[in-house]
Structure formats: structure tokens, C-alpha cells
């Protein structure tokens, strides 16, 4: 048998190596974002900027309309998060705690539609929004983010644990169903709403295919869409592209670091749905 000291050393060497693999691409991005034009193509490669500059970020905001893309992304993501939490919390609670005939069958049917890939409905949805005049609008891109079967599922599983006695006591006191939901249920299910909010925020912020399709006008583009079109014209400007990538990734990373524990809960909850 190996000594514990040796195995611990080996284990931590593996942990650190894997960490380096995870972090190097992001670290290189962060370094290159502050490099002078051309420095990212130096041989041998620079791991840190030798003469750090903010000019790449300045160019993104002044020459290249990325401020608008940032604003578009922020507005769409915040609206998607707020609306999705509101809509799915109500539905998830109803499926858990408000009995009506056929409820559990309806929920099962809904849950089985989780496997349908979003791409199947994308073309018709685009044509529908085109008829409604919603292409190249915030409303158009938001529409499929608002209600989510996964979101309803998450809230329902959590709301099942809300005590019936608590609800009945409120009913005896004469509270209406909406009041009960707003005053009693919402505070109790707050942790899962944070999970749902974190999930929606990150998936809306990072989404690419749907905004690419529905926001074809350059002024409406979100950051990922703007970035993908920028790389077409500026592929030689490595430092500029890394600044743009950093601008896009950073808000997602910050939100993740703040909401990390809620995020982990959502992933493990999703994995036991079976």
C-alpha cells in the first residue's frame, strides 16, 4: 500500500492539472483582451500582456456597437428571468397544491414533452412571429423563454413539500388563494425560485440559435449573436475578439459565482426526475 502522503500528493497533482485545463482557455482570453494589437499572435505566446491596454474594450463600445448588444442582452435576460419565475412559479404551485380533475395526468403529459428538442418548433415559431410582426423585437425573442416545462417541474417538486396545514390555516382565516400564494407560498419556495432564476438567467444570456434566428437586424442582436457576426469581419483582430468574448462571459460567470449553491440544487434535482 502507498503511504497516504504519496496518494494525497498524486491526487492533488491530478486536481491541479485538471484545474489548469479548465482555466487556461479563460485565463488566456482574459490576458489577450488587454493585449496590444498583434500581441496575441506573438511567438512564443505571451501568457500575460506586456503592455496592458483598454483599447480593445474602448473599440468595442465606440467603433462597434457592442454597447447596444450588451443592452439588448441585459434587457432580454432580465425580462426573461422575471417573467419565467412569475409564470412557472404559479403553474408549478398549482400542479403541486391546487387539486382539480385530471391534474396529475396533465402534468405527466407535460413532463413527457420535455424530450422534444426546441429546434423542432423553431421554423414554424419564426413564421408565426413574422405574421405577428414580432421578428426583431424583444417580445419575439422572449416568447419561448417565458414558460418552461423544466421550470414548472422544478417548482412543483419543491412546492409538494409545502405544508398543507399551513395553507388550510390561512384558508380558515379567510385568505383568498392569490393572497395565500403571494404571502405564504412565495416566501417558502424562495430557494427554488432562486434556482429557477439562475437557470433562466444563464440560459437566456448564453442562448445563441434562437436570437440568431429571430433577431436578424444588427441593432437588435444579443451579445453572442453580435460576437458571432463580429468574428466574421474581425477574425484577424484576436485581442478585440477576446475582449468581446470576455464582455460576454463575465456577467454569466459573476451570476454563477453568486448563485452557485442554487444552481447545484437545480442540476441534481433535474437528474433524479427519471
Amino acid at each position, binding site marked *: 500500500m502507498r503511504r497516504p502522503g504519496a496518494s494525497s500528493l498524486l*491526487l492533488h497533482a491530478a486536481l491541479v492539472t485538471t484545474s489548469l485545463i479548465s482555466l487556461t482557455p479563460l485565463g488566456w482570453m482574459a490576458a489577450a483582451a488587454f493585449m496590444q494589437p498583434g500581441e496575441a499572435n506573438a511567438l512564443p505566446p505571451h501568457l500575460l500582456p506586456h503592455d496592458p491596454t483598454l483599447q480593445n474594450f474602448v473599440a468595442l463600445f465606440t467603433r462597434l456597437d457592442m454597447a447596444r448588444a450588451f443592452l439588448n442582452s441585459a434587457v432580454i435576460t432580465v425580462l426573461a428571468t422575471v417573467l419565467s419565475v412569475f409564470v412557472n412559479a404559479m*403553474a408549478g404551485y398549482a400542479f403541486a397544491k391546487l*387539486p382539480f380533475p385530471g391534474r396529475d395526468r396533465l402534468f405527466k403529459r407535460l413532463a413527457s*414533452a420535455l424530450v422534444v*428538442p426546441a429546434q423542432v418548433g423553431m421554423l414554424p415559431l419564426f413564421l408565426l412571429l413574422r405574421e405577428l410582426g414580432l421578428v426583431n423585437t424583444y417580445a419575439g425573442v422572449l416568447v419561448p423563454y417565458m414558460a418552461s416545462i423544466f421550470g414548472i417541474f422544478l417548482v412543483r417538486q419543491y412546492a409538494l413539500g409545502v405544508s398543507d396545514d399551513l395553507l388550510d390555516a390561512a384558508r380558515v382565516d379567510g385568505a383568498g388563494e392569490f393572497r395565500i400564494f403571494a404571502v405564504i407560498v412565495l416566501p417558502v419556495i424562495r430557494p427554488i425560485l432562486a434556482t429557477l432564476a439562475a437557470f433562466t438567467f444563464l440560459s437566456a444570456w448564453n442562448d445563441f*440559435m434562437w436570437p440568431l*434566428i429571430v433577431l436578424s437586424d444588427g441593432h437588435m442582436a444579443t451579445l*453572442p*449573436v453580435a460576437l458571432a457576426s463580429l468574428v466574421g469581419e474581425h477574425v484577424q483582430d484576436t485581442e478585440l475578439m477576446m475582449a468581446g468574448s470576455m464582455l460576454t462571459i463575465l456577467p454569466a460567470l459573476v451570476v454563477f459565482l453568486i448563485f452557485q449553491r442554487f444552481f447545484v440544487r437545480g442540476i441534481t434535482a433535474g*437528474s433524479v426526475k427519471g
Partner: protein
Amino acid sequence: MKSTLTKRSPLEKRQMRAALWFLAPALLLLLVFFFLPVVAGLLLGLTDFDIYAIGSPGNARFVGLENYARLLTNDVFWRSLGNTLFFVALGGPLSVAVSLGAAMLVDAKLTRLRPLFRTIYFAPVVTTLVSVAIIWRYLYHPRYGLLNHVLGLVGVGPIDWLGDPHWAMPAIVLLAVWKNFGYNMLIFVAGLQAVPAELYEAAAIDGAGGWQRFRHITLPGLAPTFLFVGVTTMIGYFQVFAEPYVMTQGGPLGSTRSVVLFMYEEGFRWWRIGTASATAVVLLLITLAGALLQFRLQKERT
């Protein structure tokens, strides 16, 4: 559940009314903007809906299974399907293996700073796919890229990762594994923690070595987790789109065009909505087959 014939109490009626109002927004949104388009997609796949029909839908004709027949003779479609299968067959098992390895590292008894490593491994998961695809495009640069530089230090000759049809798809697989392994790692960690510790203790008393414990306790204990992780990963990988769109535009020589990229090009570049919808239905069928497989295997176990 009470029969509909029995008289409902006022409370029951009140709750049913409330349920209607609570469910209405979500169900209406899902109906109009999800279920309706999915059904419409199935139908559009049976028509020759194209750019002329966008202006006046009356121009679209019912053509039966013609779109499907044409797909079967379309080399670009078959190539895309083959590329996607390659991506799934290589990337799926590789992702699952790396996730399990990382989970075992993070979950090991001797590991210090567990939350820190977990956070680091998970960080790529939350990053924007378009951005990391762009980053990796530069890392893969044959001349200036960091990857070839590091490989060069150990004597491996420069590889034209994204320019060589043989390397482009493996390169995209590598990016996908790097980006995604942290997600399944979390699920594996939860699975590892559910394996009873007594089993390991009993095995240690019996003198079982590390490999034997892994083979006879860890792996069987993780079987349900494997099933879930394996199937969801493969279903997700079938939808690969942004990586080839950003890194290679499907090239070189069509070696990285995926099914969804093919669908996107058919639908939104050439406005052949009928063919694109039929492609989406193929994607749906593959996904359903995967889900059915998971369901069957799960039933077999219980």
C-alpha cells in the same frame, strides 16, 4: 380522486377556479409558442413550403413524404447525420468518462479545498458557448495557437486542427468535453455520495484493492446515474450547432456540418422550410428513440 358526479364542496370549487388562473399563463404560452409550432413543424415537413410561400402561404402544396425521400438521397444530409453521429459517439462517452473522473477526484476522501475545485471545473459550463468557441478557434490556430505551442514543446508536430477535415470534428469534440464535463460531474458527485459507505468499508476489510472497489462497488452503485447522464448527454449532443457555426461554418469540406446546422442552412439561408422541417422531425425521432431507450433500460433495472 373524487368522481365528477359527486357534488364538490365550495372549497374544492374555489381551488379549481384558482388552479385555472394559476395555470392559464404558462399553459397558454406553451400551447401557442411551443406545442402549436411543434405540430406545425410536423405538418410543414409534408409541404413544399419555400421562399415563395412565405409571402403568400397559399403557394405551399402538400407533397406527402417527398421531403423525406429527398433527404434520403441528399448527400449533404447524410454527411451531416454522419458527422453528428461521430460527434455523439466520440463526445458522449468521452464526456461521461471525464465527468466521472473529475467527480471521483473531487469526491475523494483526501481532497482538500473541495468546493474550490468543484467551482473551477464547473466554470466552463456557465460560459457562453459562442465566446468559448471563438476562444478555442484561436487556441487551435495552427501557427499561433497555444495548443500547438504546448504540443510542440513535447515534440508533436503542428496540427491544423480546424483546417484539416480529419481533425476538425475531433477538435470540436474536445471543446465540447472541456465545456460540459463539469455539469455531469455534479450529478456523478451526488451519485457517488449515495453509494453506501459500509460497502467500501466491508470491501476494505476483505482486502479489495482500489480497482476492485471501483469495479465492483462504485460502478454498479452508479448505474442509474450512468443511464441518466449517458442518455441526456447524447440527446444534447445531437443538437450540436453553435460550435461548428462559429468555428468552421460546417467546413472544411463539410466535415463538421451537423444535422441542426444543416437544418438551419436549409431553413434560414435557403428558405427551404419543407426540407428543414423534415430534418427537424428526423432530429425529433432520434431524440425520442434515445429517450425510449433510457425508459426501457430503467424499467429493466427495477
